[in-house]
């Protein structure tokens, strides 16, 4: 018990929480954006992998870190466009198409990485984003280490939560997007084009997902290796449901999840005799439990997964 307490009062835990949460925040915001417009994007795992590879590679080839993030976002945008073409324009099953995007995104990322990067005994690395030192704040006791010594993309993720919440709830664009997820026919009847809105939402959401992947290679670690996304995308999909499709709750969900993950990582080193796999399983088990917990009262966007074709009801 005291061990658990020690872990929880250690500022490095809370620093880790924000670090672990960052890719999830990007991913869950991206998935949320797609789903609020009515498109389930199961391509997330592949898009994150592609983002991780593309951003890292750009920096490896000499681009700046921010340019690398831009490249990652662009890669996400393109995969998002592909998913939108298949599901919004062609009206194919969002489940099946999303899986295809995941297979495609990850395999293409691995292929291009192997094609362009010479891998020796150790994977080559880049100099990643460094923790920012914010004058005045970073030197605060506890909070300084826990909150104000993060890398820039973490603050970007936090800012994007606020932006997403504002756009969704306070702007005409957000209203159009939400309405498209609830009833695309209503959007069309008011003279807007639900097809374009969905395509835009999926592309923007996919770009965010890719940024989540890029955080892994450009801030959390410094190199790319296959299977590094490790199901984080699927966890994001579960978190969206957990968050009832709201950006604020999504942030909360990602933080809770990260807290649990960071906690179990530290527990692993202090508790002996328990196979480490049990600790590693915890995040996935937790995701399933979270789904069961909220499933009954989840208020799903009504037109989620309903293809929209003009003139067909």
């Amino acid at each position, binding site marked *: 018990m005291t061990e658990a307490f020690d872990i929880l009062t250690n500022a490095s835990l809370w620093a880790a929480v924000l670090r672990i949460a960052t890719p999830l925040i990007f991913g869950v915001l991206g998935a949320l954006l797609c789903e609020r417009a009515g498109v389930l994007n199961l391509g997330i795992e592949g898009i994150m992998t592609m983002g991780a590879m593309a951003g890292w590679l750009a920096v490896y080839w000499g681009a700046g870190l921010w340019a690398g993030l831009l490249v990652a976002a662009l890669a996400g945008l393109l995969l998002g466009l592909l998913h939108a073409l298949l599901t919004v324009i062609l009206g194919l099953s969002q489940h099946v198409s999303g899986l295809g995007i995941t297979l495609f995104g990850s395999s293409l990322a691995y292929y291009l990485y*192997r094609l362009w990067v010479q891998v020796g005994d150790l994977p080559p690395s880049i100099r990643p984003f460094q923790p920012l030192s914010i004058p005045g704040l970073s030197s605060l006791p506890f909070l300084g280490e826990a909150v104000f010594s993060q890398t820039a993309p973490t603050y970007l993720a936090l800012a994007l939560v606020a932006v997403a919440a504002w756009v969704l709830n306070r702007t005409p664009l957000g209203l159009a997007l939400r309405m498209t997820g609830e009833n695309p026919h209503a959007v069309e009847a008011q003279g807007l084009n639900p097809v374009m809105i969905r395509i835009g939402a999926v592309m923007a959401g996919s770009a965010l997902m890719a940024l989540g992947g890029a955080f892994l290679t450009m801030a959390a670690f410094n190199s790319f290796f296959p299977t590094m996304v490790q199901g984080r995308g699927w966890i994001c999909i579960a978190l969206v449901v957990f968050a009832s499709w709201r950006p604020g709750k999504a942030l909360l969900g990602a933080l809770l999840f990260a807290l649990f993950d960071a906690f179990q990582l530290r527990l692993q080193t202090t508790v002996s005799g328990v196979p480490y796999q049990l600790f590693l399983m915890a995040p996935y088990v937790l995701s399933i439990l979270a789904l069961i917990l909220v*499933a009954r009262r989840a208020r799903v966007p009504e037109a989620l997964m309903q293809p929209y074709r003009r003139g067909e009801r």
Partner: protein
Amino acid sequence: MRFERREDVSLPALFIAPFAAIAVTLVLCAGLIAMAGVNPLTAYAEMLKGAFGSRLSVTETLTRAVPLMLTGLAAAVAFRARLWNIGGEGQFYIGALVAAGLGHDLVSGLPVPLAIAVLMLASMAAGAALLVGPALMRLRFGIDEVVTTLLLNFIVLLFVGLMVEGPLKDPMAFGWPQSVPVASGLRLPDLVPRSRLHVGLILALVVAALVWLLQARTVFGARTRAAGLNPRAAAFAGVPLTATLVRVAALSGGLAALAGAVEVLGPTGYVTTTMSPGFGYAGIVVAMLAALHPMGVVAAAIFVATVFVGADAMSRATGVPSFIADVIMSVSFLTMLTALLFTTYRLRR
């Protein structure tokens, strides 16, 4: 331009679809191969040679196709009922683990054919349980089974790791994390001498035929299709939706687990956490290329096996990364998905 539903599914289009999809895929991937500085035609020729160039490579390709047929059938059966089982990988591993765990010494007293049957059934039961859970979660709580089955894949793989490093660890493996071996008497006999090809191939073909019979000729098959195509109408006509879906889940999970059991009883003899190069996920591609038809699964599994075995050989010969196999697979999945659309819709100006 707009899409218009065809009055009837075009059968010729349905037959041509996979070939068109594969052709488009090979053209698209040719670009990627060219980026490696290799002539795509040379690369494809090397792939074919690698997969079918010798007696050994043919048997190797077919050996690789066996688990793909079974995971492909697993996906096809589930998708037909609109149950999105993406957990084939986890079911494969749980099946392999059960077969190895029980096959080491627990069933040693039984006559060999009976013991093998018991092993397979036990594996299938474990795989079935692994999918019935998510199916029930969908029916009860409306939880998307794609997410639950995917998350279960990670959980199962960690569990397998736990077992092969713990209770089922082979003490004779010089510290390698691999499971105890299946008793040698229980291994499936070879089909072709001096190769890894085993009677599992025959088994997979028989299972494919049985699944076809089940889907096309039985009451269960008719109800499954009705429930998949229009659940509300099926319920109105008295089709028990829950029971039907649970049975489909059991069958699908069982088939994927059978693939794992056959792999352990056939070529490998024991379980490691890297024994599957994604058989479960590839099974989804196989099912899709087969347009969910059980007999088509056989052909599609051989195609995917060709790509995998051929790509390894091609990679050695030309230096193109062998990940090209995964790219070809995923691109053919997407092109097939699109091609299938044109069997039910046509473009109209």
